[in-house]
């Protein structure tokens, strides 16, 4: 692979938005593979794909603001063996085109890589129309699709490369914020369906995904510094299939578990973990942190995180509460 222009520097202090890493990784893939295509719904700008379109105009399909058609066209392209990335804001992609995802991609086994951009509350102040707090829930209920929310630039690059190398349908969700590396990048440390252990601890476990892993990590550091409490922090980048082996190992310690996600508390990572563990017979103290069932408060992503406790201090506070119960 020609990587001189597009290699992702996974070094401290070079944090980029995961979406930028997605775009750069896609360009690197497209360099040597004319079968790599990107399909956009007037989303090349917000998807950081303008350079891709300029560099590979023959590999960029634009369908306009038409998400159902976006996914259907992507499925048709993928049916011919193309490596297709269908890019659209997560809120529209997974709601407006849900039937196309269900039928044209997952049921028909057309291996489209669906890229949900500006996911969660990335579009903060734009309000609930633009928030994607349902995508884990709806896609978890659909057979034959892998659901991934990478946390940092390393996970993003790995996820894109490895998804592209498969012939399976994927949904990958990205936000807009610059995401610092969670720990030293190690290519052997990323596999779909396997949670990444960011910090090993003894007193409580944080299971987070996507852009909430970083505040979870900060919360763990704060608990350690302020109270001597050590938390395990896991980046559960693959929402489906879940890493059941890791969940069992964590639960077997009997320590409390806190799940954290930029998603409704209904139907997301937390409920997925709770369901599995309960059915396995585990009875750990357990709390799901996410966005409650209400019209979401507006503000920046950080302000919304603060409002709902999905911040360093909010997560630390919740952990202390859970430990006292």
């Amino acid at each position, binding site marked *: 692979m020609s990587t001189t222009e597009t290699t992702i520097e996974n070094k401290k202090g070079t944090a980029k938005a995961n979406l930028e890493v997605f775009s750069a990784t896609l360009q690197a893939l497209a360099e040597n593979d004319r079968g790599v*295509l990107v399909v956009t719904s007037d989303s090349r700008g917000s998807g950081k794909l303008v350079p891709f379109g300029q560099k590979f105009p*023959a590999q960029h*399909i*634009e*369908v*306009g603001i*038409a998400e*159902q*058609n976006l*996914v*259907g*066209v*992507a*499925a*048709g*392209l*993928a*049916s*011919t*063996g*193309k490596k297709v990335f269908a890019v659209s804001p997560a809120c529209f992609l997974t709601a407006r085109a849900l*039937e*196309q995802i269900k*039928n*044209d991609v997952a*049921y*028909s*086994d*057309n291996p489209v890589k669906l890229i949900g951009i500006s996911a969660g509350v990335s579009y903060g102040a734009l309000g609930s129309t633009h928030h994607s707090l349902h995508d884990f829930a709806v896609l978890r209920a659909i057979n034959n699709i892998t659901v991934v929310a990478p946390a940092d630039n390393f996970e993003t690059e790995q996820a894109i490369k490895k998804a592209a190398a498969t012939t399976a349908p994927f949904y990958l969700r990205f936000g807009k914020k610059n995401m610092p590396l969670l720990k030293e990048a190690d290519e052997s440390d990323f596999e779909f369906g396997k949670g990444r252990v960011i910090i090993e601890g003894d007193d409580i476990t944080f299971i987070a995904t996507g852009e909430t892993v970083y505040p979870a990590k900060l919360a763990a550091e704060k608990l350690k510094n302020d109270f001597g409490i050590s938390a395990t922090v896991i980046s559960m980048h693959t929402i489906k299939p879940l890493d059941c082996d890791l969940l069992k190992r964590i639960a077997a310690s009997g320590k409390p578990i806190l799940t954290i996600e930029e998603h409704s508390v209904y139907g997301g990572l937390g409920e997925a973990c709770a369901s599995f563990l309960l059915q396995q017979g585990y009875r750990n103290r357990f709390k799901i942190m996410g966005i409650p069932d209400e019209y979401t408060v507006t503000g920046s992503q950080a302000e919304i995180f603060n409002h709902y406790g999905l911040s360093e201090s909010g997560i630390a506070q919740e952990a202390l509460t859970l430990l006292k119960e």
Partner: protein
Amino acid sequence: MKKELYRKSIIYRKKILKYIFNANAGHTGGSLSCIDVLNVLYNHVLNVSPGNFSSPDRDRYIQSKGHSVEALFVVLADKGFFPESDLETLCKYGSHYIGHPTRKVKGVEQNTGALGHGLPISVGTAIAAKLDKKDYRVFTLLGDGELPEGSNWEAALTASQYKLDNLCAIIDSNGLQITGPTSEVCNTEPIDAKFESFGWAVRHVDGHDLTALMQTFDAMPFTEGKPNLVIAHTVKGKGVSYMENALKWHHGVPTEQQYEDALNELDNAMVTVPDDF
């Protein structure tokens, strides 16, 4: 050739009725309205066979109007994609031969049944042919009742944008949907003017006139650089007098007596092949 096609249409109709009767389920009226189009496609137009079905160069047929899967299944069986005896299991517990097209059945390109899906998928497939500079063509059959789905119109725009003259959408225009006449449920006329305004080249054809259907498809592309639309004017339940244009046969299943009457009527049609064939 033409006499053979004429006979095939009648045989296909008898088989559609047979397997729907056996299954006690199925979309009878719509299968009978589109069967002549499928006959011409599979026996005159499409470069598709069991032998080349995995070839990237084959023509594609995607049945958006998934409800008429019985028509597709009897044609695929006739073309040798699977033993016709498999259709004895139609809609039975555990069978792959379910009430809508599924890729579990050899010869089926895409899983359809939910409406408004075939055209966008066909557009993507046709774009891929253009990108790869391949000569294969993509055909999709839509019911007139599914036209109000917005995804069709989104796809119609993209087809025009990408100048997909290797794409052919066919509307099985029988004028009836489950609730009643399409003109009363959600009138999409004038369909031709709408598609033309979207940048398509449009032809009307009698969807039961095999010669006219052959000539129409042979004339593709109708206009270079424009996607092709064939509005096939058909009769729901065509070929069985008591089913023709009768709403209840959308997914009605004949009684034993009705089934016998239908077979007799079709057998009579078989012995009176028109002179011009």
